[in-house]
């Protein structure tokens, strides 16, 4: 489904060049449940940004469903972004919209909409639909962020430290949701530095200095 061949991503910090991804090779299969682990600065988030289509690579090839992303037009790239759901540590909900409006926000830009009631039931957020993000706990916010991914029928969810701002109980609840979604056929890729979270995944990929080492 996703294949990265010798991918290089550099950043300029002042006059110094930083190699965030260093000839990285990676292959992710359909319906995978993968944790990407590594120390801070090893390139985990950069890898996620590249896979999500947010950032371009400097060298190598990125194949998404056997199509070379390097050769994508702006429109095709937008399609890639639309087909992958991303969940962040800080939830990224819009404060001025209610939970329901935040979930439906994605449908403004994408055709095809899943059954809202089913998602609400699945994520247990029925009683907070009319609340604003600042009235929610961290766990509730993250469930809303997941609901926002599911409303537009995403088959891949990338999660950057999804449990980073949550307590243990809420973190486990989120992982249970990811497990359920994976069982329903959704591919999940989690970036984390928490080994307890990583061990809940089917596969763990370790990164060091911009490369997959294990």
């Amino acid at each position, binding site marked *: 489904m996703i294949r990265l061949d010798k991918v290089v991503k550099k950043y300029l910090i002042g006059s110094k060049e930083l190699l965030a991804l260093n000839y990285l090779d990676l292959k992710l299969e359909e319906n995978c449940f993968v944790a990407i682990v590594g120390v801070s600065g090893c390139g985990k*988030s950069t890898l996620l*940004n590249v896979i*999500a289509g*947010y*950032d371009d690579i400097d060298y190598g090839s990125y194949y998404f469903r056997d199509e070379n992303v390097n050769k994508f037009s702006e429109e095709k790239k*937008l399609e890639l*972004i*639309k087909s992958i759901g*991303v969940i*962040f*540590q*800080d939830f*990224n*909900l*819009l*404060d*001025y*919209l209610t939970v329901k*409006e935040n979930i439906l*926000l*994605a449908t*403004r*830009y*994408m055709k095809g909409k899943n059954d809202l009631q089913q998602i609400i039931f699945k994520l247990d957020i029925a009683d907070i639909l009319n609340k604003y993000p600042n009235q929610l706990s961290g766990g509730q916010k993250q469930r809303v962020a997941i609901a*926002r991914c599911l409303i*537009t029928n995403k088959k891949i969810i990338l999660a*950057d430290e999804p449990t980073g701002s949550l307590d243990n109980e809420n973190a486990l609840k989120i992982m249970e949701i990811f497990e359920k979604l994976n069982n329903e056929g959704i591919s999940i890729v989690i970036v984390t530095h928490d080994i307890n979270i990583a061990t809940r995944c089917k596969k763990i990929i370790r990164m060091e200095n911009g490369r997959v080492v294990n």
Partner: protein
Amino acid sequence: MWLIKEVFYQRKRHYLTITAICISIILVLLVNIISGYIIDNVNYSFEQLGLNINCIQLLKNRKDNWIDFIIEDCRIEKYSRYNKKQERDYKIIGCDSDLSQVFTFEFESGSFLNKTSNMYNDNQVVIGNKLKHYFNCYQIDESININGITFRVVGILKKESRNLYEEFDDCIFVFNDYVTDYNHCGLYFVSESRFDDRYLNEFLGKDNYLFVDQSQTKESLNSLLKLIRNVLMVLSFVSVGIAIISLVNNTLNNIYTRMKEIGIKKALGASSKDIYIQFILENMIIFLIGILISLIVVFSVVKVINISLKNKIAIDLSDNVKYIVLILTAGSICNIYPAKKASEITIIETIKNREFS
């Protein structure tokens, strides 16, 4: 609905911008409406009082029959001589009954008597409305005493009667040669075409007379009023410009405070075009709100002003719509740049700015 929510959510700066837009639009509309009203009223007054009536007033005493010469040389058919004298409490205008053929007088009672009338004689007067209290004379055919001479009142003018040259409330029209101050004698005459005053220069001498041409006066007054109106309109449009700059500046600042929002929307699949349209629409909504408030204020102000006016101010919507459309178009065009800037922001930029992730 979402768009309106987005416009007003925690964006107090929008309220200031809307206020600036309102003030400038109110200025433009009020200047246009009120100056239009003044110009129309001036023209209307001129037309009411007779546009083709001219006046020659002698400034230096002459012993000859200068009026007769002018009438003959210039072939003037409709005319009336006059002779003014200012007393302490009233003004006496010596005239003949032809004055009523040049000007239209409105009478409360009575009328000018023609020379052909059996009743006509030299000791008859028409008085201005205010003077009926002064002479204690409230109906015609009563006698009044002016400087020891008794006159019969044949007409009392309506209140606030006037011609282009003076108000008649404190005037007495006498039908004889009673007035002897020849420094203030003159001629009213009707001229359908523009009167050539070069002849007067030669005949009376350049500084010896005063010539008033109504249509010329109207034109000069009109061009002066239009100049004032144009200057005020330019100043109002400068304020519109300032309001637009404030809106553009506000939008540019907002881009950086709204990076998180732009990032989230782009991550959810919004294209650059979606963000561009959103910013353009938001600014249009701000302008439309400003226009709506301005219209309410302008209509209310005009309604209040109309309470104290005899001739009511009418708002010509079609005349004002062009200014509103012009302001809206200028505002929208000026907002293309900030909207474009906002649409060019990439998700990765928002992530790097730590506003997004």
